[in-house]
C-alpha cells in the first residue's frame, strides 16, 4: 500500500510538472475547453464518425474481462441517425429516419421497429425512457451535451497535451460522485472529442469503458438508405418486450 501511495504521489508531481492545474477543484480552463467542444459539435448539422470501444466486465472473482467493439455513426440534424456496432458482445444497427426507429441484429436477422418522435433529441428521450433503448452516441447529439456531461461533476482539470491517433489533443479529467471520466479534445478550430474513458469508481474493480473516435467526417455523403431501414431478405420482424423489473 505504501508503495502504491508513493506511486500516486509521483504521478501527482509529474502532473504538476507538466503544468496541470490543481486536481481537487473545477478548473475553469477545463470546463471552457469542454464547452467549446460540445458547442462545436452542436453546431455541426451532419457528421459521421468511427469509434473503437473497449468495455471491462468484472467477474465475481474480481478478474476483469475486456470486450471490444467498433461503431460507425451517421448523424443529420434535426431528425436522422444511423449507428452500426460490431464486436464481441453484440452486432446491432440502429436506424432513425425522422419517423420511426429500428434496431436490427444482422447476425440473428431480427429487427424491431417503432414509431418515434420526429426530432433526434425527442427520439432519444423516448427510446431511453419508454423502451430502455440507448442509441449509440446519443449524448453527442443533445444540444445540451455539456450540461449532461457536467451533471454532478465536482472536480476537473487539464491534464496536458497528448496525441490520440496522431492528433494533438487537450486531455481533461473530471470527477463526479460515482464516476471519473477523462476526455481528449482535438486542439485547434475543430475541437472534436477524440477519446473518452469512464471509470466506474464505486463498482468493485472500478471497470472502465473507453472509446477512441478513430475517424471524424464533418462533410459526409448520405443517401436515403443511410437512415431508412429496409429489411433484408430473411430478416424477421419481432416485438419489443417490457423490461424485467430489476
Amino acid at each position, binding site marked *: 500500500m505504501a508503495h502504491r501511495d508513493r506511486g500516486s504521489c509521483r504521478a501527482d508531481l509529474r502532473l504538476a510538472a507538466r503544468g496541470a492545474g490543481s486536481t481537487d477543484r473545477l478548473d475553469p480552463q477545463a470546463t471552457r475547453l469542454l464547452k467549446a467542444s460540445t458547442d462545436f459539435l452542436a453546431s455541426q448539422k451532419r457528421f459521421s464518425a468511427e*469509434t473503437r*470501444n473497449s*468495455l471491462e*466486465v468484472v*467477474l*465475481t472473482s474480481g478478474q476483469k*474481462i475486456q*470486450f471490444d*467493439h467498433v*461503431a460507425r455513426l451517421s448523424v443529420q440534424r434535426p431528425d436522422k441517425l444511423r*449507428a452500426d*456496432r460490431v464486436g464481441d*458482445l*453484440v452486432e*446491432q444497427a440502429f436506424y432513425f429516419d425522422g419517423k420511426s426507429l429500428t*434496431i436490427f*441484429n444482422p447476425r*440473428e436477422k*431480427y429487427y*424491431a421497429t417503432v414509431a418515434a418522435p420526429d426530432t433526434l433529441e425527442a427520439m432519444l428521450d423516448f427510446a431511453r425512457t419508454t*423502451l*430502455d*433503448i*440507448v*442509441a*449509440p*452516441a*446519443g*449524448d*453527442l447529439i443533445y444540444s445540451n*451535451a455539456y450540461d*449532461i*456531461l457536467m*451533471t*454532478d461533476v465536482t472536480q476537473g482539470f487539464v491534464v496536458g497535451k497528448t496525441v490520440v491517433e496522431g492528433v494533438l489533443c487537450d486531455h481533461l479529467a473530471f470527477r*463526479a460522485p*460515482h*464516476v471519473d*471520466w477523462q*476526455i481528449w479534445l482535438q486542439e485547434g478550430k475543430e475541437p472534436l*472529442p477524440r477519446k*473518452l474513458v*469512464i471509470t*466506474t469508481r*464505486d*463498482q468493485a474493480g472500478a471497470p472502465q*469503458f473507453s*472509446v477512441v*473516435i478513430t475517424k471524424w467526417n464533418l462533410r459526409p455523403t448520405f443517401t436515403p438508405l443511410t437512415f431508412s431501414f429496409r429489411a433484408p431478405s430473411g430478416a*424477421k420482424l*419481432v*416485438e*419489443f*418486450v*417490457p*423490461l*424485467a423489473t*430489476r
Partner: protein
Amino acid sequence: MNIKTMRRPIVLAVCLPLLLLAEVSPDTPLGIALVREASAIVGVPAIGSVVPALPAGCVAEAKGGTEYQRCGSVYYRAAFQGNNLVYAVVPQP
C-alpha cells in the same frame, strides 16, 4: 448501474447496451448462468418469462407468419428487450 441513471458522458451511449447486458447477470459477462438456469429448469417455464439465449436443441417453426422456437414442449419468440435480443416464453401457437 449508476452511469445510466446519471446520463453519463458522450459516446457512453455506444457502450451502454453492453453495460446493461452485463447488468443482466453480473456474475457472468454473457448471461451464461442465466441460460444454464433456464435449461436446467424441470417443468415448464412461465409464459412471459424471458431468457437471453435459447436452450440447446430448439427447432424453428413458422405459424401464421410468425417464427417460433420450439424447445421440447416450450415455445419461444424472439424479441428485443431494450437493446438486447431475448427469447420470451409464449403459449403454444
